[in-house]
Each structure stands twice: as C-alpha cells, then as structure tokens.
C-alpha cells in the first residue's frame, strides 16, 4: 500500500507524479502487449482493409421447416415439424474468403438439441455443405468456417438446422458473418464487456459481467495485464530502484489497483445504466403503483382485487399456480393473510387439509375445474368440494370453500 510518509517518499529520486506516470506507462504497455497477443491468436483475418461484418436480423430469416413467431425479442421457435426438425434459412451473397466465422445469436437452446450449419456456394450450387455446431449454456457457439474445405467461392445461402426435443421456446435474434479482423474481434470483445447486464432473477446469485457469453472475460484479461505489468515493473525496479522504488512496494499495488479500477468502472457504468432503467420504470410512483409497474404487475393487480374480497388477515388462503414464480410471488402479495403455497412443486393442497371458510386463489393453473351450477370445485382428479366463486380474473379466480 502507498505510504503517507513524506520521508519514505523522499528516499526515491523520482517525484510521485513521475512514478505515477511510469506506472501508468507500464500498465498501458502491458495492456497493449496482452491485447496484441490475444489478437494474434484470435483474429486470423486480415488486420487491415477487412470486409465489414454482415448481419441478418430475424425478419430476414425464413422458417422452412417447423414453426416460429416473429416477436419483439426475435424469431421465437415454437415447434418442430413431424421429424423433430426446425430449419431457418436465408439467402446471402458474399465471398467466402472475406468471412471466417458465422455466428448465430440464439438463446434458450437446450443442451440436447443438435445444431448444424448448412450453406451452398456458387462452385457447386446443387450441393449443400454442412458443419456441426456446438451448443453450450443455451447458446450456439460461433462456427469458424475459414478452414473448412467447402467454404469456397461465393456463399449464396445459409441455414440453421435444429433437431431434438423442443421443450422450451428458442429465441433467434439473428446471424452474422464476420471477417475475424483485428478491429472486428476487438469490437466484439468491447461489445461483450460493455453489454448492459440488467437485473434479472439470477443477479442475486451471479453476475456475468457484461454479455452472457464472452470469448475473453474481462477479469481474466485484466489479471493477465496486471501480471505482465507487475513482472515488467519488478524488472524495472531491480534495474533502477531509485526511480521505481522497491520491488514489493506501492508500485505493484498501484498496478493491481489500476486493473481493479478499470473493471470497477465497467461495473459502475452498468450500475448507472441500471439506475436509469429503474428510474424510468419506478421513479415518482407510489408504493402501490411501483408494484403495478413491476414485472408481476398483472398478478399484483389481481391479488389486490382478491384482498378486497377477503375478510380480516387471519383467514387461511391457499395460493396455486403452474408457474413457480407466480405461486410464490402471489403468496407474498397475499400476506399478512395466513397463506399456504407449495414453494417446491406445482401441487394442489390435499382436499383433506382444506376447511370450510378457507380461500383458494388460482392463478394460471391447469387442472382446476369449477361447476357454477352446483358450486362444486375439484382439482387434479380429486373428489369435488363445495366452494363459492368470489372473483374471476384473466386465467385466475378466487374461491371460498364451504
């Protein structure tokens, strides 16, 4: 750590300002060296005069097999065809030699899905070429096609084939052909590091630190830069101890703090963007209106209607929903009523546990049937019980057990 003592500082010939400049120079030189080393490995394309990256947005993609919906999020693949296959294709016209990598921007891809890239070129226009893609962490890894012997001539069309069980919707936000030039690779990395990471359900457990998938995580790069800079600084300190001070001194600590400050600046920038988003969503609203503006606003609004129908808070209320989130969150909004919900499974309460006078809130839950003429309620094949329908909402209802 830096010393406060002017006496210690005076032992070195260089002024603190000069030493700080030297420190910054060592760090910058190390950063340049590390980045050049990375680019030498990761950017096989031409470093200068490279072609521009080509992008295709979801509207340019055609679903030739299976079904999908165009949404604001992108192309949402909803179901495969009879052979459990989905094919998304689009026409292109670019010289293969200029583009080394094809990247699909997809999310929610299950691990058991088989993904394949197809293309055809003007050399053998009747043939379709293929390359198996890797699926990891719900995404499709980019395909480095430059060294493929069939990546030749002009590429006239690209397609993505997905095969497997489509249990959840897959979102496709587009595709890109990249030249893998130094500028493009560096731009991609910067984009990944500074991608806005808004709060989500997993933020309390983990922060990715930018984009979900990063080819070069910023902490790893900064650690490498700090190590190289530290080694260089140690060498310089041994060479000119009067200028740089001791090897184990404020200099090395300073290099580490610079690296920490850089990564912390990214985090602060992300926080500020989050504050702006939070401000736009909630600022100036009352507690009640903030809940209505939240992600679960419709649920909160329905529970508010339920509360208006319920008697004093000691009443017992069962909260059921198919979705874990709605079940637990609905229960939270119901407190201080004496709420019961299943926090671990989508189950209905055992009919034997439900007593006359209890209430049942059903929110988007299949398998609950009500016969209004006989005022009988049953769920999941159990025996019907007497109940009165007190409130109906969109896919939701409140019953009182009698």
């Amino acid at each position, binding site marked *: 750590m830096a010393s406060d003592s002017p006496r210690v500082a005076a032992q070195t010939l260089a002024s603190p300002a000069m030493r700080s400049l030297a420190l910054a120079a060592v760090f910058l030189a190390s950063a340049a060296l590390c980045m050049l080393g990375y680019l030498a490995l990761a950017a096989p394309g031409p470093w200068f005069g490279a072609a521009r990256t080509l992008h295709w947005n979801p509207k340019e993609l055609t679903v030739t097999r299976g079904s999908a919906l165009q949404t604001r999020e992108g192309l949402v693949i909803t179901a495969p065809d009879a052979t459990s296959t989905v094919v998304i294709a689009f026409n292109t016209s670019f010289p293969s030699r200029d583009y080394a990598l094809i990247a699909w921007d997809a999310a929610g891809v299950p691990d058991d899905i088989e993904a394949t890239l197809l293309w055809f070129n003007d050399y053998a226009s009747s043939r379709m070429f293929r390359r198996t893609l890797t699926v990891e962490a719900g995404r499709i890894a980019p395909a480095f096609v430059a060294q493929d012997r069939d990546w030749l001539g002009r590429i006239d069309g690209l397609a993505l084939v997905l095969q497997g069980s489509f249990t959840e919707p897959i979102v496709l936000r587009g595709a890109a052909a990249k030249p893998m030039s130094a500028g493009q690779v560096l731009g991609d990395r910067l984009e990944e590091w500074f991608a806005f990471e808004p709060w989500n359900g997993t933020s309390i457990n983990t922060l990715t630190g930018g984009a979900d998938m990063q080819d070069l995580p910023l902490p790893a790069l900064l650690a490498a830069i700090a190590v190289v800079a530290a080694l260089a600084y140690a060498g310089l300190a041994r060479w000119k101890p009067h200028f740089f001070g001791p090897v184990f001194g404020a200099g090395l600590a300073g290099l580490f703090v610079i690296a920490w400050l850089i990564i912390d600046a990214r985090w602060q920038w992300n926080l500020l963007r989050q504050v702006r988003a939070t401000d736009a969503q909630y600022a100036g609203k009352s507690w009640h209106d903030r809940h209505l503006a939240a992600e679960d606003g419709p649920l909160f609004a329905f529970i508010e209607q339920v509360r208006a129908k319920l008697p004093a808070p000691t009443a017992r209320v069962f909260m059921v929903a198919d979705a874990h989130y709605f079940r637990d969150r609905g229960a939270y909004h119901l407190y201080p009523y004496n709420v019961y919900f299943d926090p671990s499974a989508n189950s209905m309460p*055992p009919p034997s546990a439900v007593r006359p006078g209890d209430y049942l809130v059903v929110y988007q839950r299949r398998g609950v049937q009500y016969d209004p003429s006989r005022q009988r309620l049953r769920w999941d094949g159990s025996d019907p019980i007497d109940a009165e329908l007190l409130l109906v909402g969109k896919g939701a209802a409140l019953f009182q057990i009698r």
Partner: protein
Amino acid sequence: MEYLALVFGLALPWALGVALLLALDWPRSPAADGDRSAGSAALRLGYGYFIGALALTLWMHGLSATGVRFDRISIGAPLLVAVAALFAWATRRNRISVAAVRNATSALVRPQLTRWQQWAWMLLLAWLGLRFASIAAEIMWRPLYPWDAWGQWATKARVWFEFGRIVPFVRADVWLSTATAVYFDAAPDNPSTVPLLQVWSCVALGRWDDSAMNWPWLCMLLALALAVYGSLRSAGLSLLGALIGAYLVASLPLLDTHAALAGYADLMLAGIYTCAALALHRWVLRRHACDAALALLLALACALVETSGLVWALTLVPGSVVAVFPRRGPKLVAFGFGAAALVVLAFARFELALLGHSLHLDYQPRWHSLADAYLFFGNWHLLWYAVIALAIIGARRLVRPPLAPLAMVVASGLGVLFIAFAFPSAMSVAEFGTANRATLPLAPLLTCLCVLLWRELTMPAVAPEPQAAHQPAGSDSAVAAHA
C-alpha cells in the same frame, strides 16, 4: 414527514451501537494516526451499526415476548432514552467531545497527506459516494425483487408488522394439520433478525413499504466499509492504504448487488462475520479484553442472522485457538484440519449412517462452474486472482504472527467452501445457497487479509507488534510473540 421518521428509524440502531461502544470505551487504543483521526470513529461507526441492529432486534424480541405491540413508542422511545443516557455517560467521561468529532471529520475531508495522495483520497471518496448513491437509488425505487427476499424473509416481516408482534412460522406439515394461528413460508426456520429490521423500518415509516424497509442494507454496506477502514488503520495501514482496502471491499460487485437488490441476509452475515474476525485480529495486536468480547459477541450473532451463520461462526474457532496459543495453536489447528479432512474422506468413501440418516457425501464437484464464478464472471472483480498471487508470494507470512489467526479463519472458511462445492449435499444441509452466495460472507475478510498480507510483505516494520496473551509464565504465547 414520514421520511424523517424513516431516517430516525435508520439512525436509531446506528446511534445505539455507537453509544454502546462509547460506553464500553471501544476502541480503547487509538488508531495508528492518533486519537483525533477518523480511524477510531470509523471503527465505532462501522461496528456500531451491526451491534445496534442486533440490539434493536433483541429488544423487539423482548417486547414481543412480553406482549407489547411493536410501534414507534414501544420500540423507539426506550432505545432513544438509552442512546441519550449512554452518550451523556460517555461525554461525562470525556470519551466523546465536539473537538473529537471535528477532528474526525477533518481527517476525513482534509487528511494529512501529500498533494497527490489527497487527490487520490478525494477521488476515491467521490467514487465510493457514486457507488453508494447508485445503490441508494435502486433501494429507493425498486419494489422487493430477489426471490428468497419475498419467499423467505419479507414474508415474516409483513406478518409481524401487521400484527405488531412475532408470530410463529411453521413447516408445511404442521401448518396443514394445526388448527391454531400459525404461519407458513418457504423457510419457516430462518432466524428473525433480518425480518425484524425490516419491521422496524416500516414501523418507523408508519406503513408497509417493501422498498423503504430495505434501507438498512445500504447502512450495512456503509458500516462494513467503515469497519474495514477502521480495522486496517488500527492494524497500521496508511490513510490511503486503509481507504483503498475499504474501497476494494465496498466495490465487490456481488456485495453491491446484495445491497442494491436488498432483502437477503447474506450481506448482514458478511458484515457481522467480517467484524468478528477483524475484532479477533485487533485482539491479537492489542490483547484488550473488549476486542475479544466483541469478537465473541459478533461470532455468536452470526447464527442469529442466517442458518449458515453457525457454520461461519465455527470457522472463527481455529483462528481463536491460534490467537490464544500462538505457538501450540497452529499445530492444534493443523491436527484439527487433518482430522476434519479424514472425517470428510470417511463420509465420502463409506456409507455411514446415524440414527437412520445417511451421512454419505457424494463427491460431485463442479470446478468449471466455480472457476467461472470466481475467475471469469463479474462477481468478485480481481479478488481471486489476488488471493492466488498473494497466497503464493506470502504463504510464509500467513502462518506467522500477526496474520496467522486471521489466516486460520480464512483457511477454515475456504475449507467449508471446498466441502460445500465438492459435496453439494453438504451445501444444502447448511443452507448455503449458490456458490457465490456461499462465498459472500468470506469475501470481505479475504479482501482484508490480502491487504494486510501485502502490507506485511512490503512494510513489516510498520505493523503494530502483536501482544502476548496473558498466560502463566512459561506458556507458549510469550515465545511466539517474539518469534
């Protein structure tokens, strides 16, 4: 007006803790830059919040047990009287004065540093101010957000606020079969400290507000930063060095996230656990009974905050053994670690059972995920790189006074984390949550140890001499103190 009441609600536990510490004359020995420095004040303010918050919730327990309803008067008035009495008592004994407050403020705003260091000091304070302001905005506007916060913690706060007392929460089978008024949520066995803090915020505010009730989380982060600064100062770090240490802790992204997305107990556990360990380190350096008492009190309080708090409190034991017996302690602890490793190995190797419960531990480590969480994601900035580098460079310093006790605490904590990650079933038993959340209580202490180790490596002569424990002549502590 209601926000003034909320400010009063936040200030009350803080003032109570500071007043208690002043009455106990803690910290007794001044920080290294003299009694007029901000170091002692930071220690009191930092530790004061956690102690005050614990005292407040214990008082609320007492009120509930005696059937007195929670309201501003029943909770606030007696504590306010206690604060006033303790401050008056401390003032009469010259433990606080206007001059001392002025000097501490002056040391914060205009410390005695060279010009470039003053610039660095002011920029770092401004940067920290921006961080705290960003977190404050999130707390102020965002309704309760993270899952367990509204599934396990605020559920109790909501019910207790409404009824004005602590109402029992029970497990599902009990709830379904009982006829009495008991409540249920996703974690009915969770300790009551955190919900009671939320209840007090709402009581002070005068209404239920699941955003405003989370202001204590900002206080926790601020208090932790202050406690770290004061502890590093008292351990002999320079003004700027201690501030950098506090900044490193306060800038840990996951720690910030737990303050911004408030409602979990992890941040409070991290604060109390770190304060306990740093109080132990202070005791090693000074051997004042107050430091030991504080370390013990805070260690016991860990279990009041979170179920896993008991495990974390136990990790302080090896450090305490080394602190009390500086020569024989490391051997004892090494023997204990070895025995624990053998027990874990036996549980992993054989199908052992106790009273019908299987004790078998399945070795299913997910090192790849752990590496991502520690080294490649944005959770801890560069903390784990620094830990690895410093462990290599300074391993020998870690097993010698004065850092050995703190290093033993951290080693025990890392051992617990290793078991939790290598044997996921053990993780669920101790209710650690995910890998990063399990690491959260240890991360601030680990950061402090890194800073202290670096200081030991660079300026060993500046460190305060560790004091020998008061033991009979011939005991090992005196030998080790001069080792």
